[in-house]
């Protein structure tokens, strides 16, 4: 199996275990799932089973160019299987096929067995075998990316580093601008700046910025290092972390030097890297050789020495060579001693004794001169093959010559002895070009690769060699094939050095942005996507214009959990906080508001005003539906959504009709006091402006007007109810009159208010003057006249109100066979007659007794 390929065939076993067959402890017995598997309507995959496969799966979230061919693409076998191997034809023949749907959030793919359309599209499809099997009754869910915990960790940790990095660069921008411009940060930020005017051209980051970047890169490396050493991480994944570490480490050495400038010699650092990536030679082999009586008789004696020299382990080589001092043939022991002596003092640029580079170079030059002189002296002009006298020692000469040439840094010898290009490169900077600098690498790589080509089947090798050859695009494309996380983060780093050329001719998106977008695709399309929503925001925000656009649609899709259940009619929410049943709901609701505030903060940070409006509006709609009018009203106000605000006001008013005074008063109390107190002023301001009319039910109008009038109505109607409650009937009457005559009452509510007036009209005191009574009569006439052609609009509310009252009476009297349903417009009209009668009586009283007696 290709390394890391994820479409592992699930184990034959219970339909709930999707572990690959080669995973441990999987029973491989019965292959048919038991039909009784669905105990509950929804069954989750056991966690243990998942974890076995997660790691494997994610290994290839980025399969490289698999063939377009179906033959080559790996297959995920859904469980429970619908048909056996080779049984597809038969299954198809029954009229079955598969349907699919993609979750717009999280990318989950749902599939299910469905019917193939038959001949007549107007007729339902039929099945040849209509009885449903287990698979027919299953919805299958699958995900392209399933992230094991270790990846989730890495992705979470690196997010903070990524954002810090963007900030560091943003801070360095003003200094880097070649010519100062005002407010150009945003334009140059996404590197479209390459094409715009010179004012926004940027110098590469300065040394200080690069050292900052290196520090952050170290933290990326720390994360990877922890993971590659973590015993709990699945081996395949560990290997991937290891490779990512090696690649990123190499990039750091080459492009983010400690001094920020990259002026120093790079040889030793590269060699250390080679020794870390591919440790050699094997210590135990060395011990093995040394423990033999005459170590030089060990078959690996010379190869081991060569490897050690290539890897810069010169002191061990010296001690190996010293064993030859006891060699019976004197010239051999003599030359070995010379070599050992010189190797022991081979100057290394990493030694601390050099105050300046030049000092080291001189020391090396001197060393080489001395070594050559002494060696020449030893050879003494002897011909080839005659170094040690008799021909039987000629093979010794070959081995010695190798060591000498390696010490002298002869390129060809190094290329011959090196096991691969990496080893050659590591040795090059220590033995050949001891003054090797970063700029020299591409040229040196050409020489090396000419002799030792990279095995192109090893992705890791081709990425590393491309980095060394300064072929950044090739390196990053390789990273992308290997691991999207690596491509995204390394691409981001290298892009900040202005190292990635734009290829706008061929591609729409800059490479860096493309990798970041691919990475966010993984963060967005996996089962744990909800944990990453904020992370995704940051990456998208920094991923160029397309990222910004995706951010807009991403943020509105973030789910805000709100408790589904409504507080019941008679449950006072404040008092039930500690109710057992409420705890969970309250918790969920609090979570929801917390998420909402996080989203608000994100929208502010990313300047997503439009999106925030939509989010607020949707949430307000949901809360309104739930009956949580207070919070909903606040959200509408935030979203400047007057239309939804007035809907809320209507809902509260409806509560009076459906549930009565207490519920109405409770709901009005939940509204933000500020809104309530400002409403009358706002309304007055609007009314004083003659150009603003207040149509009662137009769909689209300014946020303020409708809601101001609705709110004023709510507030005044509340006052009326409170006056009634406290028995201040004159004030109640005045308020009621005002409600009906000022034009702020919705027409549907007129009849209800008129009915309210009955008790006041029948009061022993005369509460309405004759003029006021006539006003009320006029309203009554309006209602009746309009009700003749729009009864629902003018009397509907009253009918509902009467029905509820009738229901309450029934309940009180424990009547069961009441006919409240039969209460309709007729009853409402009868009620209006009562109003007319009461008005008539009051008019008479007012005229006769009242202070406005005309007589």
């Amino acid at each position, binding site marked *: 199996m290709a390394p890391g390929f994820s479409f592992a065939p699930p184990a034959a076993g219970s339909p709930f275990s999707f572990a690959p067959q080669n995973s441990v402890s999987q029973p491989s017995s019965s292959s048919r799932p038991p039909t009784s598997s669905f105990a509950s309507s929804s069954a989750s995959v056991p966690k243990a089973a998942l974890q076995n496969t997660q790691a494997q799966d994610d290994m290839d979230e980025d399969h490289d160019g698999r063939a377009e061919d179906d033959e080559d693409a790996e297959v*995920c076998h859904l469980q429970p299987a619908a048909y056996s191997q080779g049984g597809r034809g038969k299954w198809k023949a029954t009229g079955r096929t598969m349907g699919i749907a993609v979750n717009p959030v999280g990318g989950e793919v749902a599939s299910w*067995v469905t019917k193939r359309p038959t001949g007549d599209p107007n007729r339902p499809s039929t099945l040849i075998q209509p009885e449903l099997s287990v698979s027919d009754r299953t919805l299958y869910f699958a995900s392209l990316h399933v992230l094991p915990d270790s990846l989730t960790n890495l992705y979470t940790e690196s997010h903070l580093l990524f954002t810090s990095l963007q900030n560091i660069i943003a801070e360095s921008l003003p200094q880097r601008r070649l010519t100062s411009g005002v407010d150009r940060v945003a334009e140059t930020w996404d590197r479209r700046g390459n094409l715009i005017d010179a004012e926004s051209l940027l110098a590469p980051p300065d040394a200080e910025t690069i050292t900052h970047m290196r520090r952050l890169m170290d933290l990326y490396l720390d994360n990877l290092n922890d993971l590659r050493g973590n015993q709990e991480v699945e081996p395949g994944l560990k290997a991937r972390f290891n490779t990512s570490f090696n690649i990123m480490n190499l990039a750091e050495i080459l492009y983010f030097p400690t001094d920020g400038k990259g002026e120093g010699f790079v040889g030793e650092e590269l060699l250390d890297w080679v020794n870390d990536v591919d440790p050699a030679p094997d210590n135990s082999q060395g011990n093995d050789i040394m423990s033999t009586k005459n170590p030089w008789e060990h078959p690996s004696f010379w190869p081991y020495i060569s490897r050690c020299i290539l890897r810069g382990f010169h002191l061990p080589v010296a001690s190996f060579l010293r064993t030859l001092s006891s060699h019976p043939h004197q010239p051999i022991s003599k030359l070995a001693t010379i070599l050992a002596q010189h190797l022991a003092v081979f100057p290394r640029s990493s030694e601390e004794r050099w105050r300046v580079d030049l000092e080291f170079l001189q020391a090396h030059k001197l060393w080489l001169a001395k070594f050559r002189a002494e060696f020449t002296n030893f050879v003494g002009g002897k011909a080839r093959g005659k170094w040690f006298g008799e021909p039987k020692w000629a093979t010794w000469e070959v081995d010695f010559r190798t060591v000498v040439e390696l010490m002298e840094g002869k390129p060809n010898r190094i290329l011959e002895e090196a096991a691969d290009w990496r080893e050659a490169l590591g040795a090059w900077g220590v033995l050949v070009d001891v003054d090797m600098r970063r700029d020299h690498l591409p040229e040196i790589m050409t020489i090396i690769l000419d002799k030792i080509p990279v095995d192109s089947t090893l992705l890791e090798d081709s990425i590393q060699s491309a980095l060394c050859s300064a072929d950044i695009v090739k390196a990053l494309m390789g990273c992308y094939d290997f691991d999207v996380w690596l491509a995204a983060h390394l691409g981001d780093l290298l892009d900040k050095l202005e190292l990635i050329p734009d290829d706008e001719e061929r591609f729409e998106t800059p490479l860096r942005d493309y990798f970041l977008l691919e990475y966010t695709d993984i963060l967005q399309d996996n089962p744990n996507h909800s944990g990453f929503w904020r992370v995704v925001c940051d990456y998208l925000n920094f991923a160029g214009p397309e990222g910004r656009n995706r951010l807009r649609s991403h943020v509105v899709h973030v789910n805000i959990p709100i408790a589904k259940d409504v507080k019941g009619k008679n449950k006072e929410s404040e008092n039930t906080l500690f109710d057992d049943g409420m705890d969970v709901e309250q918790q969920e609701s609090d979570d929801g508001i917390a998420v909402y505030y996080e989203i608000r903060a994100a929208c502010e940070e990313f300047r997503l005003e439009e999106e925030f409006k939509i989010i607020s509006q949707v949430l307000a709609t949901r809360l309104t539906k739930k009956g949580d009018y207070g919070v909903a009203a606040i959200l509408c106000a935030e979203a400047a959504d007057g239309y939804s605000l007035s809907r809320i006001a209507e809902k509260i008013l409806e509560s009076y009709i*459906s549930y009565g005074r207490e519920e109405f008063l409770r709901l009005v109390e939940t509204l933000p006091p500020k809104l309530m107190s400002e409403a009358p002023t706002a309304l007055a301001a609007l009314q004083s402006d003659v150009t603003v009319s207040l149509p009662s039910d137009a769909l689209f109008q300014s946020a303020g007007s409708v809601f101001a009038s609705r709110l004023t109505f709510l507030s005044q109607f509340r006052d009326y109810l409170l006056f009634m409650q406290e028995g201040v009937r004159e004030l109640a009457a005045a308020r009621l009159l005002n409600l009906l005559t000022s034009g702020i009452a919705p027409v549907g509510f007129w009849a209800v208010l008129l009915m309210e007036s009955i008790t006041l009209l029948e009061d022993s005191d005369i509460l309405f003057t004759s003029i006021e009574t006539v006003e009320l009569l006029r309203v009554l006439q309006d209602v009746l006249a309009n009700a003749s052609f729009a009864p629902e609009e003018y009397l509907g509310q009253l009918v509902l109100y009467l029905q509820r009252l009738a229901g309450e009476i029934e309940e009180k009297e424990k009547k069961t066979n009441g006919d409240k349903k039969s209460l309709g417009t007729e009853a409402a009209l009868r009620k209006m007659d009562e109003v007319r009668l009461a008005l008539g009586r009051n008019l008479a009283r007012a005229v006769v007794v009242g202070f406005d007696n005309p007589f």
Partner: protein
Amino acid sequence: MLQTNLLAPGHADLVTHIVYDFYGERLATCSADQKIKIFRKTPQGTWDHETEWKAHDAPILHLSFAHPIHGSLLASSSHDRSVRIWEEPSGRERDGRWVERGVLTGAKGSVRSVQFGPPDPAYGLRVASISTDSYLRIYTSLDPSLNDWSLVHSIHVPSLPLPGNSDEIPPPAESAASTSELASGGWGLSWCKEKWWGSVLATFSGTSPTLKLVVLDPQPTSLIHLTPSGNGAAPLTSVAWAPSCGRSYHLLATGSRDGTVRIWRVEPPGERLRLDYDSEEEVKRSWTAECTGEFGKGGARVGMVDWNATGTTLTTSDDEGIVRIYKPTYAKSWKLLGQMTAEEPPSEEALNGHQ
């Protein structure tokens, strides 16, 4: 690709369609058993049954959730020739069953597909449906309580003239579609998720291999017709308009009866250019398109096509029961990323034999 979960929705017949809501937190399923069921995602990622009800008098064919700004709304279409609009009951009235807010009739055949339009304050809530009579019908409700639905547009899809051609092909007389045409035809629609260019959707009908992009207002007009090059292209079976995420171009995927999946890249006229056009008509004619991906020709009939949220991954299903997932490379060529099948995996012995 890994199976993460499964669910037994408990329908008495095969499931015909499922849809996710805007947040991916809810799932609606419908079936030939005439019922709709709603499931809600648990924090553990499993699905809890929330409610179900009998919604139609014949097998249900298609579902669509509205954008949440319109509330919790679901549309269903059925062999009973109707589209029904359902609203989640609010707390107090809730007894499980969603409230029927509209029965949209008028279709003279089974309604094969239904989809709510994207939110657009200019037009309010719209829902489009297409039935086997090849009429694309657009309904709207301006009434906030959603009780008053009216037909805004009724478009005979085969009669839509080519862009720029004002001569409308007269709609055929009643029942002109022959039975053979019906038998091998397909009907589908998909809204453009952006409102920038007005109310735009893609639709196809009958045995035509052409996908028509239509702007609805003021009069339904073709923007561009997407016809595969070469002769003998097979009738379409499915279409999905990818979320464009603000890109300057659109991606549409179609599936055909002959197994071909095509990806069309459609470019509307650039906004800066818009001012340079002489007339609105010219703007409408300036849409361009190219087919950037074509695969699977000669295979089994494509059943469904669907995009992920960013329009970067395409999922298809075919009559062989195989689900395929495609993704573009950096160079925008499409590659097959993975497949799913409900076939039993090869036995261990067979696997070992291969290795």
